[in-house]
């Protein structure tokens, strides 16, 4: 699985990247919407999954998702908004813009894997079986 993590915080990108790598994903990062679009345009293969923060300089996540959904070639990509915005009106805006799912910050590793499982993104059985906490 290939994933693109878009967030202006390096720490948040690292955190998400580690979670995705732990389930075998190949991860690239972008620091804002413009950077993400540039990376998508120059990528030789489309990522399967894009995780997008909302508030970022240059281009925010909402605009990025709108841009991404304009291009039919990028349609197969699964997009999840990952943000501190937790008002329901904002979730509606993100879903209408074309996000497939929505994750509120802060989140646990388990929450990321469970959302990916919901989205039909392949999560290895081992990782899912380990979601027992305790």
């Amino acid at each position, binding site marked *: 699985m290939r994933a693109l993590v878009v967030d202006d915080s390096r*720490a*948040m990108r690292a955190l998400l990247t580690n979670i995705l790598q732990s389930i075998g994903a190949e991860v690239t990062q972008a620091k804002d919407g413009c950077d993400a679009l540039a990376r998508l345009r120059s990528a030789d293969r489309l990522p399967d999954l894009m995780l997008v923060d909302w508030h970022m300089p240059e281009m925010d996540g909402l605009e990025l998702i709108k841009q991404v959904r304009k291009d039919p070639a990028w349609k197969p990509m699964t997009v999840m908004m990952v943000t*501190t915005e*937790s008002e329901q*009106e904002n979730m509606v805006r993100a879903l209408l813009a074309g996000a497939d799912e929505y994750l509120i910050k*802060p989140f*646990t590793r388990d929450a990321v894997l469970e959302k990916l499982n919901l989205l039909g993104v392949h999560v290895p059985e081992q990782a899912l079986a380990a979601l027992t906490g305790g």
Partner: protein
Amino acid sequence: MPLIEHISPATIEEIASQLWASLVPAEGVLLPSAYAVERLRRAGEPITAAVSITGSCDGTVELCCPRSLARSIAASMFCVAESDLDEASITDAVGELANIVGGNVKSLLPPPTALSIPVVTTARAAGDDGTAAGCVVGFDLLGEPVLVLVRDASLAPA
């Protein structure tokens, strides 16, 4: 409208404990602590990250802890050894924590509101002795103090 009318120490406790539960392993339970201000004063170099909220309510959300704790939190976020962390990474990590707490506080306020990007300094949060106009909540994490301040810009400082 005063920001502080929408925020109580209990909500700050809840937001902060959720943040920690998401970031640190199960052993690191964040417990409310009445001694955090005093411990922070005695602890080594502090680090403070602040985000401001503007719109229907104006104020700031600040997170202050000893640098040593910031370093271990950053190490856990970046998933590297503490010795491999540079200053910018620690700053970025603490800034993101303030951003998450600030974003959660913002979502409790009536729209429209906007959140600034975090500003990180190596000072103690002003008014951490309880004179801040707003709400100060202290915590203990792995034996180290953490303060969360929600400052209400509409209130005159004491």
